[in-house]
């Protein structure tokens, strides 16, 4: 049952990702990304990571993608402009980087899968996924990194506002 759900969600995620790459219409691409985000959220839920599931829905599928779709609609780009030549330097570099990334993903597969063999058993995941455990960790041992991350985000926000608005 869980396995079936996993393959369903993973399948939708892969299809969505393919859609992002193959769709000519930017809105369709963005929606493909939304589908990927939502199905990734389902995968998290299947791993008892309820908090991550909800944050994925809220931040990525909801807010971030909402903004992206909003901007695409605002700019009203109907068609992606066709690439000028078949082997543009950008394309070559992109394909090379994608290949490198693929190799990097393959490395853990060759050694050992997490899950059954590692320490992350189902009960441990259930514990880690709970909000209380997560917040105890975030506001306990990892308080400093957490605060640094929030300050980084704040700096990014202030930077964006100053760049966008010349006159405040």
């Amino acid at each position, binding site marked *: 049952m869980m396995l079936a759900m996993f393959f369903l969600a993973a399948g939708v995620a892969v299809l969505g990702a393919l859609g992002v790459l193959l769709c000519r219409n930017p809105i369709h691409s963005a929606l493909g990304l939304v589908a990927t985000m939502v199905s990734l959220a389902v995968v998290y839920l299947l791993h008892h990571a309820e908090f991550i599931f909800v*944050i994925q829905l809220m931040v990525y599928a909801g807010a971030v993608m909402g903004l992206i779709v909003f901007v695409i609609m605002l700019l009203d780009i109907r068609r992606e402009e066709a690439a000028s030549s078949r082997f543009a330097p950008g394309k070559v570099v992109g394909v090379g980087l994608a290949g490198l990334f693929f190799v990097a993903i393959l490395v853990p597969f060759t050694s050992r899968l997490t899950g059954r063999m590692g320490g992350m058993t189902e009960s441990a995941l259930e514990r880690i996924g709970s909000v209380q455990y997560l917040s105890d960790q975030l506001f306990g041992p990892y308080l400093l990194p957490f605060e640094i991350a929030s300050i980084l985000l704040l700096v990014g926000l202030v930077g964006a506002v100053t760049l966008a608005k010349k006159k405040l």
Partner: protein
Amino acid sequence: MLDFVIESVIKVVVVFAVLMLFVAYTTWIERKVLGRIQVRHGPNRVGPFGLLQPIADGLKGFFKEDIIPSNTDRLLYALAPALSIIPALLVVAVIPFGDQFTLFGRTITMRITDINVGLLYILGLAGLGEYGVMLGGWASNNRYGLLGSLRTAAQMISYELALGITLISVIMVSGSLSLVEIVEAQAGLWNVFKPILWVPFILYIICGLAEINRTPFDMPEAESELACGFNIEYSSMKFAMFFMAEYAHAISLAALITCLFLGGWNLPFVATPGFLKLPVFLAKVFALVFFFVWERGTFPRLRYDQIMRFGWKVLMPIALANIVVVGLYYTVIA
């Protein structure tokens, strides 16, 4: 495992059916109360007091011609109504509308599920809810529609923020993200009556109304300026789905406010007998639905820039200050 699945399926079907019934009759309440506010009768032809009107409307929706304008994005045009109604229905999954009862030796809880991040789940779904409206306006290849959906997107993103920040104070006081635990924590005293918490209550109602695009904030539709906005090109059942989504949102917002601030199934100050819990919950929900209609009959629509300014420059600071004040009060004083 199997009996759990069967029980869940039965619960989902029952809750879905009842919700759809409520959605239908919320339209009736809306038309009737608005009518009376405007010193008219409201629907009174179909059945006694017009009670069969929602059913007649539904039948009409089914038999109307489904018009798809040319040059639309066919896929998204058809997908948008579904995208707008699904999050509205999914919200109900985590809402506890009663405690529990025993039937044939099984203890049945009056909720579909109780995940430990119920509140965040609802916020997440609220974020997904805007896609239906946005894509509906964009896909129908109409300028009014596009304007409506752009406004919706901007408005929903802005008010979602204030909405989420407002909720933090409730979470701090209740100490849980699970709606069941939040309701149970209000057994003696509802959250509204706790010190300071009336501020987030009012904030939440305002932001919630903006989030579900109801009247003082009904920018995406704005009949008089956008000729119905995002759903201008829709007809037949597709339009009906947008319509149902709107009312399902209103009901789920009412249920959420009931859970978060008005004590869920609890009576004020006294213990609630088991058989009264569901009626008490529903009474509160419909009182809030009545309020939503009432304020629709009262307030005019705000101008678009006023809405955005109000959201960012008034509600956001109050919501942020509210967190600080509630946090200080409940840790230092109480």
